[in-house]
């Protein structure tokens, strides 16, 4: 466990933190998954959450995004408390979320999926969708096709683009590489990096820990619902203990 020396600094510098999760307990029904979990995201960063199955990585994202209400602790967006704020409101405050599964409307067309991604936009929806078609040509080709007819990789691109219609300041992505072929995983990660360069701060949960950390600024290693290690992506990749326990040696 990393020493808590930077806790004081963190409070002072909270103006720079796009997102802060502090001392959060959370779970489903009576089952507690997260135990006193703290993490933060600075503006402009990509932060990767890694750890074994059941560590609570996805639960962190669901708790931040209001799909779960934290039992205790605080979640702050640009310094304002958002714990328990419902997803439909967070979307309007510049937070986006790409779920791991069932992340497209399968009975709607690609174009309709993107329009649903932009229901909270006040203006410029058409222009934004055209911009995304320019960025992801596969979506333009398939714009009239039902999302259920897309391949796994195409579906992941659509899920990502749907969240990007809102041009979020903070994007939460749950396992973008799950179930995809290695060549497509690379493409997905390139998209994540490209979006980050345009100014979106990103928290990404990733099962492919090495590849995920490789595109990230910092990482957190979660185990049993709490943070075991945290540090810059390089530090975590070089740490022999992290490597042995969590990166598959």
């Amino acid at each position, binding site marked *: 466990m990393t020493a808590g020396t930077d806790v004081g600094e963190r409070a002072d510098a909270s103006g720079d933190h796009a997102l802060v999760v502090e001392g959060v307990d959370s779970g489903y029904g009576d089952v507690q998954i997260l135990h006193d979990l703290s993490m933060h995201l600075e503006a402009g960063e990509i932060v990767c959450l890694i750890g074994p199955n059941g560590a609570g990585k996805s639960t962190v994202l669901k708790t931040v995004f209001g799909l779960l209400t934290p039992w205790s602790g605080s979640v702050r967006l640009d310094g304002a408390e958002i714990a328990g704020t419902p*997803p*439909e409101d967070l979307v309007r405050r510049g937070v986006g979320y790409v*779920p791991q599964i*069932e992340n497209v*409307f399968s009975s*709607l067309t690609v174009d309709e999926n993107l329009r*649903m*991604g932009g229901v909270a936009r006040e203006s410029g929806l058409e222009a934004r969708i055209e911009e995304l078609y320019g960025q992801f040509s596969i979506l333009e080709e398939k714009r009239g096709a039902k999302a259920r007819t897309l391949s796994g990789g195409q579906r992941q691109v659509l899920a990502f683009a749907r969240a990007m219609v809102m041009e979020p300041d903070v994007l939460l992505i749950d396992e973008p590489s799950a179930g995809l072929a290695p060549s497509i995983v690379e493409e997905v990660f390139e998209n994540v990096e490209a979006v980050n360069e345009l100014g979106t701060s990103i928290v990404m949960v990733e099962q492919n820990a090495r590849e995920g950390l490789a595109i990230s600024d910092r990482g957190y290693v979660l185990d049993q619902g709490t943070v075991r290690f945290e540090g810059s992506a390089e530090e975590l990749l070089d740490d022999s203990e992290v490597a042995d326990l969590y990166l598959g040696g």
Partner: protein
Amino acid sequence: MLSMLQYVANGIVFSSIIILGAIGLSLVYAIGNFANFAHGDLMTVGAFGAIIGGSFLTGYVPGTEVSIVGIPLSFYLAVLVGMVVATVVALATERLVYRPMDATPIQLLIASIGVALAYRGAIQLRYGAESRTFDVGRGGPIPIIRETIGVSVTQRHLVIVSLTVVLVVSLHVLLQYTTLGRKMRATADNPTLARVSGIRTSEVITAMWIIGAALAAAGGAFLGLDTLVYPDMGFDVLLVLFAAVILGGIGSVYGAVAGGLAIGMAHELTPLIPRVGAEYGPAVAFIIMVAILLVRPSGIMGDRQ
């Protein structure tokens, strides 16, 4: 013996009524996520809203005796009144019963049986158990249709079928080409992702109840125009509505239209089967439902596993 075409004509009229009820039932299942056993009685509420509300209109609004397709304007206004009444009742029920319960689909189903009994009981308490008819004049078969193809079709039938077509086409346009319609389809498809995308699903649920209740009220008023208005009228067609919805693929609006047509036709074509009387209409409709489900377990338009 009536001609085959006559039974088909009767089938189209009955199917129209069933389709209007079935669409709402399917919408509540798709978006509200439960089987609403009060939907038949919501048709009754609409029919009573129309017949009672309409009788006030005739007295106070001038010009309501003007006829359109042989039916006085007062009837069309009465249908609108019935739609408003059913919508208000459905929204009040949602706010006072279903939403505060915050319950599972099965619990909501059971609650809806209680709601159905409450609707029916309240109507019977206030207006009695006797049957009423819409005061739209006698109106026999249209002579020209009778003479040319030997089928007796009344002006009432024409009004029922053409207004149903207008309502169903309007709903289709709404669902396919408007933002509200897309939000409704998105919420039916994946409610969590709908919220994640920023859709305020409580607004979609409100729209769903308004549309479902308004169509149910139109169906109830048309059923009353074709036959009689009485407190059990909606409950009497509830199982036929369920048959139509299940046959079409539960949760699919287009399935409800297809299923409503199939079940309504089967119901009315029953007398064509030798030695089987019209009283077996519902039974034949159910046999056809079971037979089709054996071949297509998810229904005609259903695509869920």
